[in-house]
């Protein structure tokens, strides 16, 4: 049983209230930071912790904080990215619903480190009920003197607000999020300038995922070095994994990074194996954007080593035989799953969510959806299989934001590992499109 750094008290009754949260050690990091540490010392602990951005990119959080420009007399902002929308990912919703004060505590301590006097939590619009929970908790924190003027007599003041989006996956991209927070369409900005220099209202801004910010209190309380001892290698600490698809026990699990994938899928402590007594066929390990892997490659690397839930182990083999930890959205598919249909479904998602700014993405995602739909319904040709790989390649690297890659990678990986299944839809269309059809051929492992 791994350590729970974020969710230890998640099932304590009333933990969503200030009083109970405080009784279980809540807001200690605010006291410690504001009374005994300078802002730079807090940032230093986050750097030492090795904490990596939990939204998907895995960029070192302390380094991101270190990039923040701090011109004299200019306001700067910490913005929490709570626009959780990556298919397969549903950890932040749970964290904010059950432990709203953990996020608020992290926001206060983080804002202090960065010198922000106003901070925002940008939450996806569908989660309006979570916005209410956060606002209620924020009001409690104000009443207790942890927000507002002169927090705990330290001279540091902070206002914290929650801002809803309105249904747009693209707003999870940090510059689109900032546009949206400014009351505009969520079109990603050209970079540079990066948000660290010109972010919200053209002021220096740090944007961090909910789970990243929620890890700040434990890092400040226990010290960055202690945090870095948990996990494996450069994958320090714990990670929330949201597991879904054909599992016996889908749900949210806090794991120590380094847990073997096989244990995560099959152990009763975690997902409890594949539903209906079926076999596992494939896994998308880090949200819909990351390459899909067949069973053999998700359980073991190409070199035959146990695959671990860590940034390094999951990406072992690059995009030929590996994938990414991403957001921790873990989608398991059983032996009856049609990979062509699933790939089409994801392509439809990216087409729907493309903001339309860049032609390769706007047009390319539409092509992918259309051609995959054709293949899935038995009307495709062999040429179509190469066509989608070619379209994906032409999107990748040619767009302002990573939605292009997010749309391209799943297609490229699906064809790489399951080309025979795509071909079967072309050569045996009647069989492949019959209700309940299941392809039983082997996956491509290299």
């Amino acid at each position, binding site marked *: 049983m791994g350590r729970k750094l974020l969710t230890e008290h998640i*099932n304590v009754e009333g933990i969503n209230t200030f009083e109970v949260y405080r009784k279980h050690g809540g807001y200690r990091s605010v006291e410690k930071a504001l009374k005994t540490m300078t802002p730079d010392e807090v940032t230093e602990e986050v750097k030492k912790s090795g904490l990596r951005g939990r939204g998907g990119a895995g960029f070192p959080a302390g380094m991101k904080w270190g990039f923040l420009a701090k011109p004299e007399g200019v306001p700067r902002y910490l913005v929490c990215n709570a626009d959780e929308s990556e298919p397969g990912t549903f950890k932040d*919703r749970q964290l904010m619903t059950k432990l709203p004060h953990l996020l608020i505590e992290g926001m206060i301590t983080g804002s202090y480190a960065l010198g922000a006097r106003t901070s925002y939590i940008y939450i996806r619009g*569908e989660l309006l*009920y979570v916005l*209410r929970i956060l606002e209620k908790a924020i009001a409690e924190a104000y009443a207790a003197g942890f927000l507002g003027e002169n927090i705990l007599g330290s001279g540091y003041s902070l206002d914290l607000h929650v801002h809803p989006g309105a*249904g747009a996956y693209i707003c999870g991209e940090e510059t689109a999020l900032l546009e*949206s927070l400014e009351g505009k369409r969520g079109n990603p900005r050209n970079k540079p300038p990066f948000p660290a220099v010109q972010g919200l209202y053209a002021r220096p801004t740090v944007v961090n995922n909910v789970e990243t910010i929620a890890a700040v209190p434990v890092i400040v309380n226990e010290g960055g070095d202690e945090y870095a001892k948990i996990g494996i290698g450069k994958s320090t600490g714990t990670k929330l994994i949201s597991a879904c*698809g054909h599992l016996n026990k889908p749900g949210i699990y806090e794991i120590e990074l380094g847990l073997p994938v096989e244990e995560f899928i099959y152990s009763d402590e975690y997902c409890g194996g594949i539903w209906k007594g079926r076999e596992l066929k494939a896994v998308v390990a880090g949200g819909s954007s990351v390459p899909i892997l067949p069973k053999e490659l998700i359980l073991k690397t190409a070199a035959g080593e146990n695959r671990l839930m860590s940034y390094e182990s999951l990406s072992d083999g690059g995009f030929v035989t590996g994938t990414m930890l991403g957001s921790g959205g873990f989608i398991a598919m059983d032996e009856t799953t049609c990979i062509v249909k699933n790939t089409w479904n994801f392509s439809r998602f990216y087409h729907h969510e493309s*903001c339309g700014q860049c032609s390769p993405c706007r047009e390319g995602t539409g092509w992918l959806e259309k051609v995959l739909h054709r293949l899935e319904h038995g009307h495709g040709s062999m040429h179509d299989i190469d066509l989608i790989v070619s379209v994906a390649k032409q999107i990748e690297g040619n767009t302002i934001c990573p939605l292009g890659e997010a749309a391209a990678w799943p297609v490229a990986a699906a064809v790489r590992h399951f080309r025979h299944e795509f071909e079967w839809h072309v050569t045996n269309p009647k069989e492949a499109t019959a209700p309940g059809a299941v392809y039983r051929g082997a996956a491509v492992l290299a």
Partner: protein
Amino acid sequence: MEPNTAPAKLQFSAAAQAEIKRLLTHYPADRSKSALLPILHIAQAEFGGWVSPEVQDLVAETLNIKPIEVYEVSSFYTMYNLKLVGKHVLEICRTGPCMLRGSDELTEHLERITGAKVGETSPDGLFTLKEVECLAACGFAPVVQVREQYYEQLDTPEAVDAMLNDLRGQIHRPILSWEENDLPNSLKNN
């Protein structure tokens, strides 16, 4: 021109006006446009679950911005309904993880029992069916969102019936009143 027959000018209720005033304190005074998305949510809840051009003009006037600045935003984000909708808009998640657990079957089932196709409203005016992308509840699939409520694990006819009966018993709820009871079961405290 007969002034008596001119439609009354749209106005936010007092409660909505108070909420808008509160929201505006969240942003720098010269950045009040930031409140556009939340105010559009309020407007949609106030005026029948959709934002007509007139409603959008009212929002523009409230924020002292050009109407086009509202139109370009309302047409970008999927949560704003630009057409008249039924009493309850069922937003059915259709993305991969929900599809793996039966969202296609759920959609067909809902079409059958409500008499509305996706994009349409049932003949009794109660339910509008709308397909949406990932709602971040993949572990509890398949999922339908209705305003501030999530209905989860809708993989049996019984679960779907329970949702529809629950909705039939509800009045159109203003966005400004929220109760903890609205939490999906999966997120209620143990």
